[in-house]
């Protein structure tokens, strides 16, 4: 009875919030207060896919959702990235009948890494997809080691499918602590962008089993690449699916003879796609359908958003070194003169520790074609110092207010780019729209 009342309340609050144009995780938060075990009391569909990892999980999650909808029209998903317990509870309860049954044949949920244990304790997940583990918001999550450890502990009794990036040693090691799971690895073969050495912020240089230094046949980006331990069996796994014939300029790659196109031209995007294609194969969805889904997928939310401020301006979210490096590499492929705004905030959702900017390769921006960098946000000066000590040769301008930064950018004439941390994204979008032509 208590569970039914809780569901009623959730729907009631949610309807109320919708009336005021708000969504979010408040209903779930209240539901968990009323009944902490509410999620254990309902009947679930047999197909529940959980997506987690550090970078690209919202994009990947939403691609998996688009894919699953082709087979299960009534699939549900936290598409807006409400990936903590309260947001997930809101999603599930809002689709639960008073007969305590989820009215959907498939649930796709993005889950914050530290919330994976809570979700697995409450929801009968059938498939887990893990992309990568990087340093991210260290002050919130503790050291990355701690994050991987917590996810690992939660897998001890997990009996479903585990779809892992086979080129990330920190992801691969999870197979060791998930003895009852059925493990599938995906990867990306060597290509034009692969390197013999990596100088980017690296995690897990050591074998998880024997502490020997891992060897790499090649690196893709950061510590992602084809690794193995010279001393034991770690890293000698076979791949369920692998992307070959990667052509980054054409944004294409091949899996099992089918040519796919990605919505983003970067290696991390190809990893996301191969993860999604692995789900298609596991759930018996044809590659042609998967191809159509990936090609039609529209990126949102701070991933290459275009604005017209008299000239094109590209907005990107940055939140950790690896993500920032990839965005900067992308920007620097443009060889014309350019001006860049970087908004660095240190609110809780951004991570209150901004030292990650020193692990990111801002040296990538140091180039005679980078004319002006405008530093903005709560930690604008820290960003300016980061560039100064990288011997940036262009002009550094500090304008802490986002609106001022955009006015300045608008007054310049080169190609325009904006990088913003999470809480700067929405104000930045508003400012850019206000300054549209």
């Amino acid at each position, binding site marked *: 009875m208590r569970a039914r009342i809780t569901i009623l309340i959730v729907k009631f609050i949610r309807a109320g919030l919708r009336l005021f144009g708000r969504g979010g995780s408040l209903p779930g938060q209240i539901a968990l207060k009323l009944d902490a075990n509410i999620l254990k009391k309902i009947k679930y569909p047999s197909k529940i896919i959980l997506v987690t990892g550090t970078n690209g999980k919202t994009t990947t999650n939403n691609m998996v959702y688009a894919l699953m909808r082709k087979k299960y029209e009534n699939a549900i998903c936290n598409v807006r990235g409400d990936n903590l317990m309260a947001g997930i509870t809101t999603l599930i309860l809002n689709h639960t009948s008073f007969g305590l049954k989820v009215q959907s044949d498939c649930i796709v949920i993005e889950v914050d890494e530290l919330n994976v244990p809570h979700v697995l304790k409450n929801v009968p997940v059938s498939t887990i997809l893990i992309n990568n583990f990087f340093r991210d918001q260290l002050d919130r999550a503790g050291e990355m080691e701690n994050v991987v450890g917590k996810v690992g502990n939660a897998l001890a009794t997990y009996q479903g499918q585990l779809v892992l990036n086979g080129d990330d040693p920190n992801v691969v090691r999870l197979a060791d602590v998930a003895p009852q799971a059925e493990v599938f690895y995906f990867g990306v073969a060597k290509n034009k962008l692969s390197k013999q050495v990596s100088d980017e912020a690296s995690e897990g*240089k050591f074998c998880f089993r024997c502490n020997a230094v891992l060897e790499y046949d090649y690196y893709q980006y950061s510590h992602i690449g084809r690794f193995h331990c010279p001393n034991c069996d770690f890293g000698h796994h076979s791949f369920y699916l692998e992307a070959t014939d990667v052509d980054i300029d054409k944004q294409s790659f091949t899996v099992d003879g089918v040519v796919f196109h990605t919505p983003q031209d970067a290696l991390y995007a190809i990893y996301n796609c191969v993860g999604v294609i692995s789900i298609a194969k596991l759930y018996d969805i044809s590659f042609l359908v998967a191809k159509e889904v990936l090609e039609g997928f529209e990126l949102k939310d701070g991933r290459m958003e275009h604005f017209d401020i008299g000239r094109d301006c590209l907005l990107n979210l940055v939140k950790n070194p690896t993500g920032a490096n990839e965005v900067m590499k992308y920007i620097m492929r443009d060889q014309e003169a350019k001006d860049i705004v970087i908004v660095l905030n240190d609110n809780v959702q951004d991570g209150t*520790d901004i030292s990650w900017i*020193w692990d990111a390769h801002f040296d990538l921006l140091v180039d005679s074609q980078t004319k002006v960098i405008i530093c903005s946000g709560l930690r604008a000066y820290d960003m300016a110092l980061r560039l100064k000590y990288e011997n940036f040769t262009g002009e550094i301008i500090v304008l802490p207010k986002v609106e001022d930064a955009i006015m300045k950018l608008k007054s310049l004439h080169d190609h325009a780019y904006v990088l913003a941390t999470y809480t700067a994204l929405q104000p930045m979008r508003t400012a850019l729209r206000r300054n549209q032509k």
Partner: protein
Amino acid sequence: MKMKILWMYHDIMDLYGDRGNIQVLKKRCLDRDIEVSIDTCGIGEQKNLNDYHLIFIGGGADREQHLLYQDLVNRKQDILDAIKAHTFVLLICGGYQFFGKYYIDSNGNRIEGLGLFEYYTESNSDVGRCIGNIEIEADLDGEKVSIVGFENHGGQTKNIKTPLGKVIKGHGNVYRGEFEGFYNGQVLGTYMHGPLLPKNPEMADFIIKKALHKDYEEVMLKPLDDTLELEAKETMRKRMQQEKG
């Protein structure tokens, strides 16, 4: 003039942007036409520590710190010799903890420290981690300087007779503590990341002077334009003053 820096365990002890300190030291020397060499020293690498003006060790994750412990112990005599010969030592977080008597990590594992000093570190899960922006008033050989940074440590370091400075905002060596860091004229240990040096140019120059003093009697550092650095520090100081508590 030439400044010789040894960055120990650069590949393991490199958390929270500590590498930025090296970048700052390097640029502030080069901008004054002081030559700089930066050597790195990993586990098992042969390096004569006494050859350097400055030894730097940053912070690392618990698991990784365990890996280098034995290597550091093997170098204890070399470290003592270098200090005796006036090499300056800058230690952040994990590096700082290693120079004390022992360190008990969050899982209760005890690691013996180098025991160069009387302080020791224990993790205490009851009080939680010391996380957040921090300001201290450091005492740099008698000169009082405001230093800002970011701390993030579970370890509580106790029994320090010569702290680096007084806590103005933040925790310091222990949860809600009064003092931060350790400094004895030759070895400077601190929990301050951020990294430490970009926003604290006075501290950076102090370290450069102290280090060069090993080989050069009179070290005069040409003033640099520190407008950005001091604005950055002032912005953080003002913010911390406005925050409650």
